[in-house]
Structure formats: C-alpha cells, structure tokens
C-alpha cells in the first residue's frame, strides 16, 4: 500500500514495482517482449503496441473492479455473462429495427443497467449474505440465458455510426477506449490510495472481524464494490463491443476467466487483503500479448495446435517466476 505513492517518478516507480509482488511478472513481461522483438522487430511498431493496448483496455477496465472484489475476499465470475447481456441490450436499444433509441440514451441506459446488475449481485452478497461465488455462478448461467432471450436468434448488424464511434473513434491520436481505460486506472489508484473507501476495502479484506469491530460499514462497502464492478463492466462493453460491426450472442463468453486469471496472476491474494493495481495492469498486458507474441514468432504450421499449451505454460512460467522472486525476497 505505502509503495503506491512512489508512482510520481518513473525510476522510483520501477524500483517500487520490483519490490512489489508484481516483480516476477514485470521481469517476465519484459523478457518475453525482448525475446520476441529479437525474432521479429515488427512487434515493437507503434501500431502494434497500440492495437495490443486497445485489446487489453476492456480487460483492464473490468480487472480494476474485480481486483477490489478480490481484495474484499469475495469473487465475481458473472462479468462475462453481464457483458453479454449489456452488449445485447445495448445493440437492441440502438438498432433501428428494434428499439431505435438515440446512442446517447443507449449509453446512459447501458451504464445504468450494468450498475444495477452489479448492485443486484452486491445486494444478494452484502445484505442477504449469500456467498459471492454462488451468486455470481448463478448469474453467470442465468444471464447467458437472458442474452439468448434478448437476441432471439438473430444478431444485431446495424449499429449506427454514433455508437460505432465509441469503439473505432479516437481523440488526440489515441483510441477512445485507451482514454477510458487510463481514466479508470487513475480513478482506481485514487480510490485505493486516497479515499476512506479504499482503505476500508483493504481493511475489510485483510481482517473482516476486526473491521466489523472497528465499526466499518462492511455491507455498504461490499455493495458499492460490486455495483462499481457492474458499472465498469458496462463501460468496458461500451468501448469494446462497438469495435465490431456485429453484436452476436457470444460476446463475453470466457471473459470472467480471463479477468480472474489476470487479477490473480497480477498478485492479488485470492483470500483477500492484498492487491496491487500495477501488478494487475501488467498481468492484463501479458495475457493479451501472449497470442500476439505467438503469431509474431511465426512458429509455423506445427505450432498451430500447440498455441493453447504454450499459453498455459506461459501462465505457469509467470507463476513460477513470481514465486521465485518472492522467495528470494523473503530469504
């Protein structure tokens, strides 16, 4: 936690990063980057780095919320299906052949819907005290069904330019989703380090009993964090789905797994209490980079069927390295 203020100066920041849990990940990412740019320098082209960042942005946005959920000692595996419902309803709202609402209203309604779904999760978890894994596991299944019902067997193929701009447009040379992602990261950093809410989240996660005795509003904090995750999921949907021209019913399938992997590989403790945004951001970059790396290494036809195995080994490698670095540090 106290390392977070070192983010002001780059050198110190990097040193701080090395001291953190994300150190192994940091090294691993750079190792991989270095290796692949030796094989194929085109990887380091600006256009490619930008595309990787664009792909990482929605994952990163959701991870910022999910990290807080994990810090609280809870979990949310419903984000993928939530994305599906949000994409479907957003598409249905703007499609001229369905509801034909104006993009502005659709954006606002989508954000509200996302927050409401997150709030429903949060309400069941915080106020009815149902274990989060069960609530979100149920939501994961049920919301996928809702998506199919909304789509009704046809896809949305007529997204208006107004909404497509969110996904394809750019501002001051950078795609909009990167701005949004940067905003979310800054906001989350501020939330974690500068606000009472941030401190409370960490306090509750590391010692719920003590936090309860200290009079912290545990229920309200949990509720807010889940609602916030829902809001961020809606935000991620808004900037990523309009990148494509077709809204299909499979949007967000497996997203929960990717996000959870990123957050835990990024050094967030599964049992709550600790987590670093920098580690999570690095993990997101690493995870979205892997498949691009594999394509740039041009491993040939034989490697086609091994790509998933290599991805798995990559994650294993990151975990191992992280472990080694940490055990070095503690000894």
């Amino acid at each position: 936690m106290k390392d977070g203020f070192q983010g002001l100066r780059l050198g110190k920041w990097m040193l701080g990063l090395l001291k953190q849990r994300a150190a192994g990940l940091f090294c691993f990412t750079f190792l991989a980057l270095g290796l692949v740019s030796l094989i194929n320098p085109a990887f380091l082209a600006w256009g490619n780095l930008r595309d990787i960042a664009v792909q990482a942005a929605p994952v990163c946005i959701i991870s910022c919320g999910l990290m807080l959920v994990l810090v609280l000692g809870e979990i949310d595996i419903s984000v993928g299906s939530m994305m599906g419902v949000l994409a479907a309803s957003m598409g249905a709202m703007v499609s001229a052949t369905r509801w034909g609402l104006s993009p502005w209203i659709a954006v606002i309604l989508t954000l509200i819907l996302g927050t409401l779904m997150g709030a429903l999760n949060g309400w069941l978890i915080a106020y009815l005290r149902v274990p989060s894994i069960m609530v979100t596991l149920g939501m994961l299944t049920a919301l996928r069904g809702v998506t199919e019902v909304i789509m009704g067997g046809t896809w949305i193929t007529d997204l208006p330019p107004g909404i497509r701009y969110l996904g394809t447009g750019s501002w001051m040379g950078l795609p909009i989703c990167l701005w949004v992602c940067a905003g979310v990261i800054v906001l989350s950093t501020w939330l974690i380090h500068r606000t009472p809410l941030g401190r409370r989240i960490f306090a509750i996660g590391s010692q719920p009993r003590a936090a309860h005795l200290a009079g912290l509003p545990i229920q309200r904090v949990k509720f807010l964090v889940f609602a916030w995750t829902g809001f961020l999921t809606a935000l991620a949907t808004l900037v990523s789905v309009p990148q494509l021209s077709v809204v299909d019913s499979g949007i967000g399938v497996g997203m929960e797994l990717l996000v959870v992997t990123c957050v835990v590989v990024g050094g967030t403790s599964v049992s709550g209490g600790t987590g670093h945004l920098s580690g999570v951001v690095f993990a997101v970059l690493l995870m979205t980079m892997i498949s691009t790396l594999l394509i740039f290494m041009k491993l040939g036809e034989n490697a086609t069927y091994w790509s998933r195995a290599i991805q798995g080994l990559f994650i294993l490698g990151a975990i191992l390295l992280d472990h080694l670095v940490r055990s070095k540090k503690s000894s």
Partner: protein
Amino acid sequence: MKTKWFSWLSHPESLLSCLTLVMLGWIYKEDPTFLQWEVQKELSTHIWETALMALPMTLIILTGGIDLSIGSTMSLCAITAGMLHQHGVPLPMGCLAAALVGLAGGWFNGWFITRLKVHPLIITLATMAAFRGIAEGVSQARPLSGFPKSFTWLGQASWLGIPLAGWLFLGCLALCAWIMHGHRLGRYIHAIGYNEVATRYSGIRVNRILLGLYCLSGLSASIAAILFMARRNTAKADIGAGVELGVITAVVMGGVSIFGGRGSLFGVCLGLVLIHETREFVSWHWSRDELNLLALGSLLILSVVFQQLLGHKRSS
C-alpha cells in the same frame, strides 16, 4: 417446537430434500412420463461423469481448495487412451495409462499447492489451459474413435437396472462416505478447511492429505474420461470443456461452503439430483435450451438465498 422445526429446516440438506421433493412432485403433475424408470435410466447416463468428479471436488472444497482443471485433465486422459489405442496398444493398457496421466496431472496441481504454496485457484486456472493445450497439440485436434465393441458396451451395459457407471459412482460414494465418517481422515479434511495452520501445528500431515486429494481428483477425471469415451465412442481434445463449472455448481448447490470446513456428501448428491433433473426436464418439457440456463442459474441463487434466510431465522 417451532424453533426445532426451523433449525431442522435450516440445514442445507433438509432444505434441498424439500426442494427436490417439491420439484419432482411438480414434474409428476406436469409430465408423468418423464419420471418413468426407463426414461430416467437413459437420462441418468448424462450425469455420472459429473457425479463421479463431484466426489473428490467435495473433499477438495471442504479443505478450502478448488480444482478447475478437471475438464482439461479429462481431455488429456481421453487423448492418451485414444492415441495409444490408435498406435495398437490394447485398450485396457491405454486406460491404465490414462489413469496414470490423470494421477500425474493431479499430482502436478497438488505439488504446486503444497510445495510452492500457490493458491489452488491460480494453479488450476493455469493447468486448465495447459492440459487442454497439450491434449490439443498431441492429437492435432483430431477426433480418435473406432473403439472395440467390448469397450463401448461398458457405456451401455447395466446391472440390476442401473448403468455400470452408476454402480461405479455408488461404490466411490460409499468409499468417500467411509472416509468422511468412518475414518479419521474425514475429521482432518474438515479441520484443514476450518483452519489449515492450526491443523498443521497439531501434527497432521496436511501436505500429504492435500496432495492425495488432488491426485484423487485427477484420477476421477481420468475415470470420467474413460466413461465418456465408452459412451460416445470418441476421444477428442474438446471433451470435458466446461465440465468443471457443472461439478462446482453441484457441489456448492449441495451446501458445501466454498471457504471449506462445512458441507456433506449427502447434500452434494441432492445438488446433483436437482441440477440433473432441472436440466433434463427443462429441455424435455419446453424444448428451449436458453431457458435451461435461466432455470439453472435461478435455481442455484434461489436455493442459496433460501438457505441463507432460514439460517438467519435460526440465529435470530
């Protein structure tokens, strides 16, 4: 008297029993043919693999762990047996090799968890990708089929009106029940779930128990893979995809606490029955697969909300 009634109902098992009975009653009213023995026997073939893997998963979740890699282990085992069969190795040897691969996969998870102290969720997330990836790579994503009749017979045969896979499950269930209730290991497993550190300090070999449990999980995945191959006459790298979700849903539905220490095998069996009957009946009756997802998700949430509310009634 009234408080006693509530305290009885607040056990997840009794609540689930009531839920199961109500549901079966309703199904009987709607469509009695669904509950005929022949129909149920045929449909039961869809659940045995999940059920078999749910047993070790229950024990693992009782210790506060989780194993997400079982679906991928299944595919790896199936590919092992299938490839060996294709290269002329007799199928029983292939199945043995598959079981060894399953054990090795489980041991690998267990080793990371006990030695490197990696959280089970993290390591099994990683092996979930790695194992399926290896299966895909080795088999080049091709299906392997053409197993002998004697093997596929295993998937269809039944004894005393129950499929062989069902007997296998009942046997494993009896074994697990004995471990949990008739052996000190059961107490240790609960203890690890309550407080791993305290258990360690009381001189119990926690690492050995955990390693054993993850190996058992891998083994059960390999048996499930063999059952699947016998039933569908195919081994392929995509089998068992998403199976872990079904297994975990059944276990948590059965009232096993995800934080460990609390839950029973009986509850898990009820959870399995509920999920299986819901899934089959919804597509039997409405023929709309998307409703299935809605029904399963709502059932899971509803049952835990009920459990929670009745539990609160008791405490207040």
